[in-house]
């Protein structure tokens, strides 16, 4: 099913500057894997050696952090929007 992935500025050198990618995927994990197939290099930036989402990479389905849904297994209905958002740089004090 077609869905949209939003790519943050910090990762757009991998997409030649494109900020929104349309893909076919049933789950968040499939979408991110498809992204890596289309734009090689995404995988190592998003996943650690064990294949888990890196801790300071947040992935939102609509407005919800997928860590609090079903993680990479979260289903992505048609026209879902996935956003990749690095944790607020430097964070808070």
């Amino acid at each position, binding site marked *: 099913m077609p869905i949209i992935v939003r790519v943050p500025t*910090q990762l757009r050198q991998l997409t030649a500057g494109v900020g929104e990618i349309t893909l076919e995927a049933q789950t968040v994990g499939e979408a991110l894997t498809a992204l890596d197939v289309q734009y090689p290099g995404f995988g190592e*930036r998003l996943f*650690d050696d064990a294949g888990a989402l*890196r*801790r*300071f*990479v947040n992935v939102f389905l609509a407005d919800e*952090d997928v*860590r*609090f849904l079903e993680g990479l297994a979260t289903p992505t209905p048609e026209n879902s929007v996935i956003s990749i958002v*690095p*944790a*607020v*740089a*430097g*964070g*808070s*004090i």
Partner: protein
Amino acid sequence: MSSVLGLRCRECDRQFPAEALHVCDFCFGPLEVSYDYDAIAAVTSRASIEAGPRTMWRYHSLLPVGNETPVSLGAGFTPLVRAERLGAELGLKDLWLKDDTANPTGSFKDRVVSVALTKARQLGFKVAACASTGNLANSVAAHAARAGMASVVLIPSNLEKAKVMMTTVYGGQVIAVDGNYDDVNRLCAELTSERPSWAFVNVNVRSYYAEGSKTLAFEIAEQLGWQVPDHVVVPIASGSQLTKIAKGFSELATVGLVDGDGSLRISGAQAQGCSPVATAFNKNIDAIAPVKPDTIAKSLAIGNPADGYYALAAIKNSGGGCGSVTDGEIIDAIKLLARTEGIFAETAGGVTVATLAQLAQRGVIDLNEKTVAIISGHGLKTVEALTGHVDPNHTIPATLDAFDAAVGFDDPLFN
């Protein structure tokens, strides 16, 4: 001479030079200062530290600034006091308080800011900036004045009056932002890319800033006679202080200043109205769900804690606990601490003491453990929280009769 090797990504281990960098450009993980501990051990001994200044800078060789002259108002080496009366109330036989209300601007933030501005000056910055829940603002404004640097401080517009005045008085720029701390912080992160010539204490020099909290661990060990306590209770906002206290104790063992830190347990304290770390701890999950803060403990009101994960890991790895307490319990704890030990703490101290009580009651803290609670900020900063809770007992005309009527001879004071 510097024992700093550089910065290292906490997540993927990539190495970076010791510059104004804070995020790994590969995986977005936070950067951490790494040291050559053999070099530190070679120049550091108990005697060399004991001969140093009576400030946090007696641990200069364990801080990331080389030989740079510190930007200092005299932070650190605050009292570590045995708390027998508070301990008796809580059933703890060996309780100690690290009284960081005694710092120059009244909170532990003077430790981290002293390191941050020293490093900022070393890196050539002329402007110090930050986002703050209040105490950091006070400290950045004061230390910038001391260093002759300009300052730009961003705070939530609903901060306690004293915290606003204790910032504005130093004459820097103070910008009150409509929104909560997490909103202010997001703006500050955006500003960091727009104003690359400013040192943002909590952003681009954060890796150095955070190291200042290690001095709490160093001092506690030294003040206990070069001994690591059994249990330390630390308030959590971003989680940086707790994480660095853990690092501080472990460094002392690494460079041979203490015999080991293996049995130290670390527990965290949060307000129920902002307890993302305590919630994750209690649910036994690793991911920390951001919350919208609603608590009188404004200094701890960070709903999306940057170091929350690391604080949680430090607690779990050490076998400690994490509690959260209500606004009512915070106020009662502020009064209990003042009444039993003569220390007036701000709301964050109330959170720590109330959580200490809770953890003791739940048996998380063993009654015989040598336990140290961090009292991180002064009560004058948050007097609003006590409004209506600590009024005079009587208001009388200036006559003996009126006094006798108010405080009669049958009053327990006379028996």
